[in-house]
C-alpha cells in the first residue's frame, strides 16, 4: 500500500495505540502495553520513512491530499487535508524517530511508576496530535494538532497529579498556552478575512502574488498584524518571552515527557509554524524583526537564568528556551532553513541531554539537585559519555551537530540588515553562556567529590532500554549536522538545499566573501564555546559549594522574579475579580437568585393549584375528558360553529 497516498495512517497508528492502551491498558501487563505503544509508534515511524522514500523517489513533489471535509460553512472549508513537503519530511522524521526512541527509553524509565498504561496512552496521543500538527495542510487542522499537543502536555506535566506542584505546573502550562492560542486564533481569523481561506496552499499563493506589497518596516499592515498574532501563538507554544514561564515548571512531568514534548517536538511547533508561514512573514519585515528580537532576547535571557539553576532539569529547561530563541532568531533574520536545521539538531541533542539527565536522576534515585551529585562519571559511564556528547554538541564544538546549525544561524544573523550585528553579538554571548552552563552541569554532576550519601543512594547504571536510545541519540547529535559539513569547505549546504523548494533559495548567499566570513564566524563561535568551557572549568572543576545567593546571583536564581511579577500583575487581580465579582455577585446573586426564584414561584403556584388534586382517579379521568373536549372544540371549530350556530356552509 502506498503510504504517501494514505498519509493518514502515520498519525492514525499512535491514536489507535493510545485508544487501545487507554481503554484496556489498565487490565494488561506492562509487556502488552509496551508492545502496543512501541508497536504503534514504531510502525508509524516506518510508515513515515516509507512515505518519505516514496516522496523522494517521486521527484520530491510537494504532496497534498484532501481526505475528507471537516468543517464546511459557506465559503469556508476546513478539511482533513494532509500535506508532505521537504519541511514536513524533516518534522515527521524527527517527531516519529525521536518519539520512538523516547518511547523505548520510557519503558525503562517508567517501569516502576503507577499508571504505566496511562502514561503511554498519553504519550501516543501526543504523537498523534504532533503528527497532525506537522502534516496539516491548513491552519485549522494545524490548530487542532496545536491544541492537542497542548492538552497532552498538560496531561503529562500533571502526570503525577497527586503532587500539587505537578498539577499546578500543568495548569500553568495550559493557561499560558491559552494566551498564545488566543493570539493564534485571532491571527487565523485575520488571515481568513484577508484571503478567504486557511489552506496553506491558497493563502501562500495569494500572499506571494506580486501585487501583494511587502509592508515596509514599522508599518502595521494586515499581514504584519496577522504575523504578529501568529507569533504570539508561537511564543506561547514555544516558550518565548514573555510567555516562556510555563516551560521550566513543566519539568514537573516525567523526564521522558520533558525530553519528547518540552525539548524535542512540541515546543518547536511554534518554530515550525513560523517557518511554515514564512511567505507571510517575509512580506512583513516588521514581524520578522520582532521575531528576531524576541528570539534573540529569549536566547540570552533564558541562558542567563540557566547559569545558576541547581536543578539539573531546570538547567536543561532554560537551555531549551534559549535554544528555541535561537531558532526564532534564525526565522527572524529570514534563515528559516537554518532555524529548521537547528530545530532538528536540537531535537537530537536536547532529547539526548534530557534523557541522560533522566538516566542520572534514575541513577540517583530521583535526586534532581546537582549540588547533591558529583563524581558520577565513574559510576555511570554510558550516561556520562552520552551526556558529554550532548553537551559538546549543544556547546557547538565541531564536528557536532549544533556547531553547524548554530553557526548557520549566527552567520545569517550577522549579515541580516538593520542591526544584524547586535543580534549576532547577543547570540554569540548566549552561545558562551550556553557552553558555560552546560559544562557547569557536567562538572557539578559527574566530577568533583560526591556530595550525596553513599548509604542512602546506591548509584547504578540504567537498563539497556534507557541507555540504548541514549547511544543512538548521541550518535545522531554527533552526525546530525553533517548535512552542512561541505558548506564549510565551499561545498553546498545539503540541508538548506533540501529545504530550498520550501523556503526558496533566498538565504545563505554564497560567494567567496561569505565563505571566508563564515569560516571566521564559526571560528569565533568555537572560541566562544571554548571560553564558556574554560570559565566553567575554572569555576567548578575544583571543590565547590552551593552558590551564595545574593546580588545578581539571587536575581538570576529567582528567574528575575518574573513569576512573582506575573502573579502580582495578572493572577491576583484576576482571582480577586472572579471571587468578589463573578462569584459573589454574578453567580451567587443573579444566577442562583434566578434559579431559586423560579423554584419558589413554582412552589407557590403548586400550593395554589394542589387543591384540585382529589386523588380520585375518576375525577382525573373526567378532567382528561374535559381537556379532550376543549382540544376537539378548538380543532373542529371551523366545522362546528355552523353546526352549532346554524351557519350556512
Amino acid at each position: 500500500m502506498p503510504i504517501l497516498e494514505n498519509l493518514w495512517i502515520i498519525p492514525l497508528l499512535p491514536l489507535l495505540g493510545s485508544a487501545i492502551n487507554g481503554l484496556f491498558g489498565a487490565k494488561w501487563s506492562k509487556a502488552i502495553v509496551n508492545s502496543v505503544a512501541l508497536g504503534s509508534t514504531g510502525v508509524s515511524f516506518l510508515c513515515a520513512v516509507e512515505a518519505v522514500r516514496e516522496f523522494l523517489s517521486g521527484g520530491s513533489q510537494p504532496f497534498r491530499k484532501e481526505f475528507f471535509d471537516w468543517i464546511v460553512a459557506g465559503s469556508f472549508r476546513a478539511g482533513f487535508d494532509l500535506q508532505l513537503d521537504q519541511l514536513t519530511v524533516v518534522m515527521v522524521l524527527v517527531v516519529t524517530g525521536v518519539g520512538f526512541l523516547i518511547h523505548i527509553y520510557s519503558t525503562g524509565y517508567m517501569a516502576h511508576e503507577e499508571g504505566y498504561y496511562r502514561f503511554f496512552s498519553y504519550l501516543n496521543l501526543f504523537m498523534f496530535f504532533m503528527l497532525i500538527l506537522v502534516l496539516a495542510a491548513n491552519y485549522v487542522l494545524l490548530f487542532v494538532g496545536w491544541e492537542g499537543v497542548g492538552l497532552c502536555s498538560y496531561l503529562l506535566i500533571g502526570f503525577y497529579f497527586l503532587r500539587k506542584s505537578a498539577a499546578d505546573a500543568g495548569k500553568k502550562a495550559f493557561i499560558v498556552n491559552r494566551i498564545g492560542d488566543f493570539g493564534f486564533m485571532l491571527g487565523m481569523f485575520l488571515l481568513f478575512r484577508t484571503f478567504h481561506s486557511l489552506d496553506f496552499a491558497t493563502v501562500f499563493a495569494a500572499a506571494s502574488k506580486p501585487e501583494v506589497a511587502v509592508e515596509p518596516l514599522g508599518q502595521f499592515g494586515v499581514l504584519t498584524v496577522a504575523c504578529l498574532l501568529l507569533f504570539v501563538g508561537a511564543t506561547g507554544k514555544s516558550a518565548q518571552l514573555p510567555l516562556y514561564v510555563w516551560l521550566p515548571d513543566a519539568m514537573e512531568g516525567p523526564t521522558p515527557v520533558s525530553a519528547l514534548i518540552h525539548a524535542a517536538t512540541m515546543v518547536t511547533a511554534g518554530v515550525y509554524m513560523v517557518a511554515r508561514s514564512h511567505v507571510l512573514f517575509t512580506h512583513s519585515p516588521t514581524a520578522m524583526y520582532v521575531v528576531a528580537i524576541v528570539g534573540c532576547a529569549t536566547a540570552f535571557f533564558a541562558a542567563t537564568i540557566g547559569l545558576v539553576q541547581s536543578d539539573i532539569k531546570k538547567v536543561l529547561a532554560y537551555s531549551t528556551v534559549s535554544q528555541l530563541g535561537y531558532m526564532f532568531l534564525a526565522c527572524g533574520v529570514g534563515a528559516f532553513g537554518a532555524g529548521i536545521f537547528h530545530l532538528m539538531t536540537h531535537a537530537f541533542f536536547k532529547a539526548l541531554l534530557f534523557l541522560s539527565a533522566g538516566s542520572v536522576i534514575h541513577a540517583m534515585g530521583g535526586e534532581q539537585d546537582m549540588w547533591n551529585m558529583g563524581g558520577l562519571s565513574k559510576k555511570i559511564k554510558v550516561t556520562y559519555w552520552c551526556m558529554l556528547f550532548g553537551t559538546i554538541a549543544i556547546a557547538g564544538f565541531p564536528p557536532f551537530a549544533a556547531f553547524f546549525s548554530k553557526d548557520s544561524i549566527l552567520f545569517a544573523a550577522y549579515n541580516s540588515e538593520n542591526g544584524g550585528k547586535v543580534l549576532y553579538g547577543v547570540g554569540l554571548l548566549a552561545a558562551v553562556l550556553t557552553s558555560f552552563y552546560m559544562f557547569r552541569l557536567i562538572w557539578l554532576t559527574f566530577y568533583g567529590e560526591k556530595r550525596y550519601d553513599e548509604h542512602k543512594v546506591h548509584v547504578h547504571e540504567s537498563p539497556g532500554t534507557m541507555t540504548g536510545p541514549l547511544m543512538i541519540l548521541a550518535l545522531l547529535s554527533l552526525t546530525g549536522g553533517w548535512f552542512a559539513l561541505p558548506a564549510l569547505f565551499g561545498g553546498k549546504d545539503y540541508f538548506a538545499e533540501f529545504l530550498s523548494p520550501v523556503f526558496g533559495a533566498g538565504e545563505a548567499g554564497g560567494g567567496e566573501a561569505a565563505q571566508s566570513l563564515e569560516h571566521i564566524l564559526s571560528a569565533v563561535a568555537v572560541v566562544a564555546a571554548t571560553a564558556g568551557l574554560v570559565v566553567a572549568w575554572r569555576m567548578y572543576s575544583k571543590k565547590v559549594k552551593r552558590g551564595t545567593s545574593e546580588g545578581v546571583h539571587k536575581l538570576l536564581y529567582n528567574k528575575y522574579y518574573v513569576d512573582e511579577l506575573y502573579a502580582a500583575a495578572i493572577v491576583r487581580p484576576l482571582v480577586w475579580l472572579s471571587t468578589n465579582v463573578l462569584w459573589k455577585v454574578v453567580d451567587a446573586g443573579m444566577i442562583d437568585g434566578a434559579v431559586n426564584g423560579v423554584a419558589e414561584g413554582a412552589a407557590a403556584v403548586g400550593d395554589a393549584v394542589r387543591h384540585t388534586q382529589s386523588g380520585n382517579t375518576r375525577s382525573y379521568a373526567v378532567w382528561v375528558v374535559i381537556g379532550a373536549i376543549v382540544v376537539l372544540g378548538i380543532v373542529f371549530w371551523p366545522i362546528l360553529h355552523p353546526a352549532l350556530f346554524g351557519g350556512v356552509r
Partner: protein
Amino acid sequence: MVPTNYYLILSAILFGLGVLAFVFKRNVITIFMAIELMLNAVNLAFVAFSRALGKSDGEVFVLFVIIVAAAEAAVGLGIIILTARNRRSLNVERVDLLKL
C-alpha cells in the same frame, strides 16, 4: 360497498362508549379495558380512512397501535396486580393516596 362514513360514525360511537366506560366504571381492570375499547375504535377509523384514501398507511398505523396496546397491557396489568396486592382492592376510588 359500505360508505366510509358508516365506519367513522361507528368508530365515533364506540369511542364514546369507551370514554363512558372510562369515567363510569370503578374497577381498574375494566377501566383499562375501556382504554382498549377506545384504541379499537381509533383503529377502526384508521382502517376506514386507509380504505377510503386507498393507502395502506392507516393499516400500518393500526398494527403499531396494536403492538403498543399489547406492550401497554403487559405493563399496565403488572401495575394493576401490584396495586391490588398492596391496596387489597381493585376499586380506583379506594386507590387515592395521590393527593395532598
